[in-house]
């Protein structure tokens, strides 16, 4: 079984970090995993997106045709990619800055006001981690422990305070999604 998640937003929103942290967590759980960023000419404020494919078998194609999960951090991301999601899939929406809602009826959507929540915690840059909390809770691909440990590993020896903010942001997103 292979699960694919597609993350999209503006450059600078930490979209690639969302994918990398999930990919690391999946690896640490012992899953096969491939992370594929969309790349282009370097440009600040451009679009950023990436795919993470995870599974208990070899990942054949890293290309995300029909991802099971779409995580959108910006309005253009939602309009561009909502049609990619597989029927029955889930769309995670950063509802702080995205007003539109998916037009499709065959997918589930989850609205998380990540930017507002991160601001309440005192650091809007943790918006992406709030979303990851929600994603981890809903998708159940990896446990919160594995995710947070992986996140800390890849953040390396950067500021301790940042790790603390990330933990709080993750918890906020995680708790926001009800079982």
């Amino acid at each position, binding site marked *: 079984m292979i699960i694919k998640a597609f993350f999209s937003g503006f450059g600078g929103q930490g979209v690639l970090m969302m994918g*990398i942290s999930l990919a690391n967590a999946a*690896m640490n759980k012992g899953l096969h995993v*491939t*992370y594929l960023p969309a790349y282009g000419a370097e440009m600040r404020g451009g679009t950023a997106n990436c795919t993470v494919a995870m599974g208990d078998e070899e990942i054949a*194609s*890293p290309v995300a*045709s029909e991802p099971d999960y779409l995580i959108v951090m910006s309005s253009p991301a939602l309009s561009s990619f909502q049609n990619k999601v597989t029927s029955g899939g889930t769309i995670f929406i950063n509802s702080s800055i995205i007003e539109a809602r998916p037009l499709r009826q065959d997918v589930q959507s989850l609205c998380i006001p990540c930017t507002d929540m991160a601001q309440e915690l005192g650091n809007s840059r943790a918006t992406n981690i709030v979303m990851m909390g929600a994603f981890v809770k809903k998708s159940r691909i990896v446990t919160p422990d594995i995710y947070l440990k992986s996140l800390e590993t890849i953040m390396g020896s950067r500021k301790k305070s940042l790790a603390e903010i990330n933990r709080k942001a993750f918890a906020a997103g995680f708790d926001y999604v009800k079982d």
Partner: protein
Amino acid sequence: MNKVLMSGNNIIGEAAIRAGCRFYAGYPITPQNELTEYMAEHIRSAEGGVFIQSESEIAAINMIAGASAAGLRVMTSSSSPGISLKQEGISSMAACELPGVIVNIMRGGPGLGNIRPAQGDYFQATRGGGHGDYRTIVLGPATGQELADLTMDAFDLADKYRTPVMILADGMMGQMMEPVIFKKPHPRNYPEKFMLRGAGNGKSKFIRGLLLDPIDSEGHNWKLARKYAVIAQNETLREEHLTQDAEMVIVAYGTAARIAKGAIKRLRDHGLKVGLFRPITLWPFPEMKLRALSAGIKNFLVFEMSTGQMLEDVRLALQGYANIDFHGRPGGAVPTPAELANVVAKFYSKID
């Protein structure tokens, strides 16, 4: 050794340094910049490691040629247009029998093309690429783990046959991250007699590709040809996937093979017996292994992210033995497994 998640470009860099590469020269070009940057950051920490950001790809290949002659393990990397520039030096290294590893993270062409993943450099890579009668060993990895393993192997092959070895991947292979375990590299076995380190008190040596006497030059060409024949005999690698019961086999390498595997999964779910033959060495092409498959399988479909280049090698292997069809997406277009599955299903439906 734990698994680590790394991008393809970084995997190549790390594997090279672990394999004892101590000289890297390169010039920025997308989508392989992360490899140049990785070498800039890490090779100088290795004892005797040298990194030079060269003024051009031409300079880079000649820098590594000099360092190779001086006895170091050397590597340069680029992407399609930059590899075209390196051809002068690759031809020269082949002529002078200098080992070295050249990485091509292919992008769309011809000309400047674009920076999307493509496979349009197959001819250039496997037919020599530069002028003159020569070949380079060409390795076509398809996973992060293979990038690590084949990069290390590339250095051993380059030394063993004293010839440039190319790693032919594409933008997707370079950019994607996968878990990887680095194997223990073999100790280097490269005699000092081939190195140019100053004559000391002994006889001076020279390394050259210029042989003005045609008979000498002919002899040198045949000597190289004999070497290439030995490589062709001994060094082919391929993967076969679900070919046992297959009615149709897709022939694809690198990223295209990954997409093909995804397509095969879908096709098998629908009861279509499709398998994959994946050449891992592109030169030498595993011709006999492919032909052997045709004893039981009569339908082959070549899938490439090009207008059909490896197709010619498949024809050389299978023409007269089996039916050969082709599907290609050139210029940086990357099909999804679903798209490829539809294409294959159409061809499959025509099988008797």
